């Protein structure tokens, strides 16, 4: 019998070699207690959280928590059913109404995760003979959506408008075209030149889907994302988003003005063939989304945090993913996996949690320490974080 697990041997060996150096397992961290959106207890120690997607700090919002508790009491722990059978409760409709109001769009469809939203929408709308043109640095959920569907898949170099245009122009006449972009690319925290890209996509007869997972609630005058910020949201056919970042719970969605959008509820398999979100989750999401509509002060403070941390780390001599802060993600580029893991551990020992990101999740084989800021990080916490980076960076020999 050949062992089906043999294909994982190289990864098992690489992982063992890393752990043999004595470093703490970067993928084995447990949060024993969560004190606030920015502080948790890990291995008995209070740790500042700088690696969550809790951008707007909504996880502990009192109104959000109260709504969840009420829904647990009124509707129970779960729906035990698909949205199209017994799994649509008042709360599912309410959160879709909240999304329509938040984005000022006609339709909203809620999935059980953001991953499923991309998987479902992309695989369903782009079918056999259609073409999907997408950025090479797209999230795994986008790639998996492409793989699940029957369309021809054509990637182009990251944020390269000319490369995208050339490929669009070569697509055979009459074929359906879907351009897939992201507002914020989560590994380096850089944004896309959406206005120009969407103009080119439209000139070439393509529909446009933009994943705004990492920008919702924060970027744009109303927190609708990078497309809103660049004044081109009206030209986006489908916005994909998630409840597991700024909204502070779990779930995914697509909003759209397409007049036939509702038919997707019957034909989109990752929507139909899974259980709907628990009532408490949709209640917390709806409450959080409505509060995010009035989040101007928090958005301003989060930008301030992002600018302060970016400048602080750059001044210390760290190599960063973007020349200026473009989102709430600041990626610190490590020279290699070993020193990246060493730096990650040194920061944890200082009392700071960041994300260690490595290939294949990262572009160009990079090892990154990804810092994601929260609107609830105080100005003092950001200064403390910069001090921790300075000590850890010197100890590991990176600066």
């Amino acid at each position, binding site marked *: 019998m050949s062992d089906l697990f043999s294909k994982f041997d190289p990864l098992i060996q690489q992982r063992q070699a890393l752990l043999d150096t004595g470093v703490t397992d970067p993928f084995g961290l447990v949060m024993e207690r969560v004190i606030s959106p920015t502080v948790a207890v890990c291995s008995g120690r209070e740790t500042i959280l700088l690696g969550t997607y809790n951008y707007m700090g909504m996880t502990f919002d009192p109104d959000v928590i109260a709504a969840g508790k009420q829904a647990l009491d009124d509707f129970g722990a779960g729906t035990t059913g698909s949205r199209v059978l017994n799994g649509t409760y008042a709360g599912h409709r309410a959160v879709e109404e909240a999304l329509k109001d938040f984005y000022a769009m006609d339709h909203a469809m809620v999935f059980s995760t953001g991953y499923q939203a991309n998987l479902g929408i992309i695989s369903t709308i782009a079918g056999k003979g259609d073409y999907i043109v997408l950025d090479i640095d797209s999230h795994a959920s986008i790639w998996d959506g492409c793989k699940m569907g029957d369309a*021809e898949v054509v990637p182009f170099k990251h944020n390269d408008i000319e490369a995208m245009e050339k490929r669009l122009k070569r697509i055979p006449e009459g074929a359906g075209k879907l351009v897939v972009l992201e507002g914020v690319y989560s590994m380096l925290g850089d944004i896309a030149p959406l206005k120009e890209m969407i103009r080119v996509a439209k000139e070439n007869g393509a529909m446009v889907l933009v994943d705004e997972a990492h920008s919702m609630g924060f970027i744009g005058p109303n927190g609708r994302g990078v497309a809103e910020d660049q004044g081109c949201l009206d030209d986006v056919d489908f916005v994909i988003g998630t409840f597991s970042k700024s909204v502070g719970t779990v779930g995914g969605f697509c909003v759209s003005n397409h007049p036939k959008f509702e038919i997707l509820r019957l034909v989109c398999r990752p929507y139909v063939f899974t259980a709907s979100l628990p009532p408490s989750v949709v209640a917390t999401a709806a409450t959080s989304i409505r509060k995010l509509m009035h989040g101007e002060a928090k958005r301003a403070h989060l930008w301030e945090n992002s600018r302060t941390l970016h400048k602080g780390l750059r001044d210390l001599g760290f190599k960063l993913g973007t020349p200026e802060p473009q989102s709430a993600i600041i990626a610190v580029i490590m020279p290699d996996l070993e020193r990246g893991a060493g730096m990650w551990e040194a920061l944890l020992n200082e009392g700071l949690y960041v994300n260690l990101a490595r290939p294949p999740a990262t572009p160009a084989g990079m090892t990154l320490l990804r810092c994601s800021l929260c609107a609830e990080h105080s100005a003092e916490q950001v200064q403390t974080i910069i001090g921790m980076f300075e000590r850890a960076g010197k100890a590991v020999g990176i600066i």
Partner: protein
Amino acid sequence: MDRAETAARIAELIDPFNKKGIEITDNTSFAGDLEWDSLTVMDFVAAIEDEFDIIISMNQQAEIETYGQLVDAVIKLQG
């Protein structure tokens, strides 16, 4: 452009990515012999697409493992 010309042009485009100077035959495989990773493949495919003004979708790339298969695919895609 006949097959020989197309093949010669593709060989020229392989050259800058052929770091180890592997000899190119119809059976040379991109992943096995040239040891290209996914990023190299993307840059090379872009160069081929621009040179011949064609699209080689990921679906089609999955079927192309060797130089000989690529030459055949490019000729077919040019119509």
